């Protein structure tokens, strides 16, 4: 029987909207600042400053400043707190974890004389995004039910047998456990459907999302300078991504009466993994000894990703059908569903200016610097494509085309600004900075988001070793919708994000 069902799924799944959701694109490109403790302490600005290994991930021309060598290690601690307001009620959830940030080495060549250039090479690992997050929100909804998402999906489908088997990651599970049902109930009226959730009398809704994982990148950078005025560099980036998400949405009858609906819940599991490649090119121009002007371009990151996912629906219809559960694994021979695809993140363009007070060898006379980056990211340019190795590209291509159009409509270009500075007292340094990530949403249905990161830190450099400490405080706003409806307003949670990160960089000069 399962083979028949499986064959039916393969053959009959037609114009279903089926693929990655647009939020996946933003998760991989709307990321917080990263890098060494020194870079994070000055707001992440590194597109013109240079002289730090983290320049390999921002503007590779910056490593051309090196005629010495650095070997560094950066452990960091992250803590994320979300205050979520959903239908007038506020909940909180926390997530914290330890990770490895920028680590690696850079080495520069000796300058034979002032008329000849130098070269530098760097190999480094960087944690470019941390996906660890917990989100929880609850509210009383008297206007609609999660199950209406399923009703919209199967709208117009006359054959209830297709409803029962063609949507194994949502609608079929809801139908077979009687979260949604035929109008007549049981086997009657099998061409019209309704929800059994009594939202008119109120539903207590809860959404709990737990995610883990990170995006890291291995960078191989080369840089050089023909003379001391112009520096240039190139980085080959090899990103790795690992993401896991477990979400559980529950809605329960708000009344105390037995009315053939106690509660229904859908649990979804997703893990995404893969790797890719990108290039970063950059140039730094020094019109005067104390001034540095930087320009950098990051190509889109090409990622080949694989999703492995499942869903389980549990519904308690009390005296009607009792407590029933069904998992998508019953449709997939007990395995997680698996699908590989290609993803392109948007390109990034950075311009930057730095003022360095006293570029001289004697460290007792080095005083400090100010630096600022402006970054343009066109989030509309994110796109998904079919993996040519897949055997079913025809129906997926149409969906990906639609998905890319949706991304084009709901996201927009955004400007990110990073500013920072340092005061230096021979061996001790103090730093301060800020980063602002602009709103990537087009605000079609009320979506808005932004992040402000305030940073500070200390550094100590002596006897061939250096140690830098940074604190990054993040405040942000975002939205999250447990479900989206096309025929009526749907609820959204307003998320206030508070993040804290402590970054420690240990380094040795050689």
């Amino acid at each position: 029987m399962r083979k028949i069902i499986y064959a039916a799924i393969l053959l009959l799944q037609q114009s279903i909207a089926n693929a990655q959701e647009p939020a996946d694109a933003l998760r991989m490109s709307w990321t917080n600042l990263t890098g060494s403790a020194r870079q994070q302490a000055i707001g992440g600005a590194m597109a013109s400053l240079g002289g730090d290994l983290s320049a390999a991930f921002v503007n590779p021309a910056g490593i051309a400043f090196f005629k010495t060598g650095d070997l560094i290690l950066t452990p960091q601690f992250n803590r994320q707190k979300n205050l979520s307001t959903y239908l007038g009620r506020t909940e909180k959830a926390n997530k914290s974890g330890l990770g490895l940030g920028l680590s690696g080495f850079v080495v520069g060549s000796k300058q034979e004389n002032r008329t000849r250039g130098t070269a530098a090479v760097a190999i480094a690992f960087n944690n470019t995004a941390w996906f660890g997050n917990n989100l929880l929100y609850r509210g009383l909804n008297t206007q609609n039910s999660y199950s209406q998402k399923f009703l919209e999906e199967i709208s117009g489908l006359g054959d209830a047998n297709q409803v029962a088997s063609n949507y194994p990651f949502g609608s079929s599970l809801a139908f077979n456990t009687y979260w949604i049902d035929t109008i007549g109930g049981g086997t009657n009226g099998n061409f019209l459907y309704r929800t059994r959730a009594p939202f008119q009398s109120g539903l207590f809704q809860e959404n709990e999302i737990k995610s883990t994982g990170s995006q890291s990148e291995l960078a191989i950078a080369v840089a050089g300078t023909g003379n001391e005025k112009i520096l240039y560099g190139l980085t080959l980036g090899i990103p790795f991504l690992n993401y896991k998400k477990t979400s559980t949405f529950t809605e329960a009858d708000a009344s105390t009466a037995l009315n053939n609906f106690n509660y229904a819940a859908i649990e979804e599991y997703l893990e995404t993994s893969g790797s890719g490649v990108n290039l970063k090119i950059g140039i730094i121009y020094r019109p005067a000894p104390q001034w540095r002007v930087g320009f950098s371009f990051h190509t889109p990151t090409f990622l080949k990703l694989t999703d492995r996912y499942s869903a389980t629906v549990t519904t308690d219809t009390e005296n009607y059908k009792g407590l029933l559960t069904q998992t998508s694994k019953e449709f997939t021979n007990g395995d997680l569903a698996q699908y590989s695809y290609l993803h392109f993140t948007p390109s990034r363009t950075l311009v930057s200016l730095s003022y360095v007070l006293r570029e001289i060898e004697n460290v007792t006379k080095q005083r400090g610097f100010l630096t600022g980056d402006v970054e343009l990211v066109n989030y509309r340019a994110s796109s998904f494509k079919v993996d040519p190795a897949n055997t079913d590209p025809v129906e997926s291509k149409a969906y990906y085309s639609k998905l890319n159009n949706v991304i084009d409509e709901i996201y927009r270009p955004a400007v990110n600004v990073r500013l920072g500075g340092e005061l230096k007292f021979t061996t001790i340094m103090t730093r301060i900075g800020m980063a602002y990530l602009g709103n990537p949403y087009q605000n079609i249905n009320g979506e808005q988001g932004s992040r402000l990161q305030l940073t500070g830190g200390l550094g100590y450099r002596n006897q061939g070793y250096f140690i830098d400490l940074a604190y990054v405080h993040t405040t942000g706003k975002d939205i999250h919708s447990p479900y989206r409806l096309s025929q009526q307003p749907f609820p959204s949670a307003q998320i206030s994000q508070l993040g804290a990160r402590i970054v420690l960089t240990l380094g040795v000069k050689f």
Partner: protein
Amino acid sequence: MKTTTSLALLAIVVLMQSCTTAYRTGQTPDDVYFSPDRPENEYLTMQRQETRRYRMATEDYEDRYLRMRVRDRNRWDELNDWYTYERWTLGFNSYFTPTLNPFVSWNHYYNPYYLNNPYLYGTGFGNATNVKNTYTKPRIFNLNSYQQMPANLKNVKAMAGNYGISPVFNNLHSRAASTPNRGNALREAFGVSTPSRSSSSPVSSSGNSSSSSAGSAPVRRF
């Protein structure tokens, strides 16, 4: 993953500690401001020959064998063939080879060099098989919900409201996520107790009471 990260951290710390730095005395350059050329090494350096650890070179084997024979000619004479050429063969003609040659020794299940080690290559005891996924479709999402709503429905804040319930803070970890009856657990989070729910009984053969485990739902047929 945490173990791997910890080992990586430990390895890098050890590596950094073992690094020699040319800047133990004098000023430590700061490349953000100025990167000087590296200082020249003030001492003559030469490679320490005795630190060579690899013994695959032919001269090393010959040297070792000669030293062994000098010590006890009778004892080590029979190993002459292996040290001269049989260590490069599978050694089927040598009486001593099966136990002495690490590439083909008889206790090969514990020998990482043995080509047919089942723990390395999956041969011998039950081949390792890849889990075969039978469903290869993208994740489902209704993209129509991203279309712009009519103006009278556009403001999602119309959905927001207090509904007479005071805002409260409940930590994620304090919630009884594994409560058998999620409906009761969720209602209790809102301060609503529903004792009558727990007395409900199923009417279908596949259903169970609300407070017990769920029955597996079959695919409906029409």
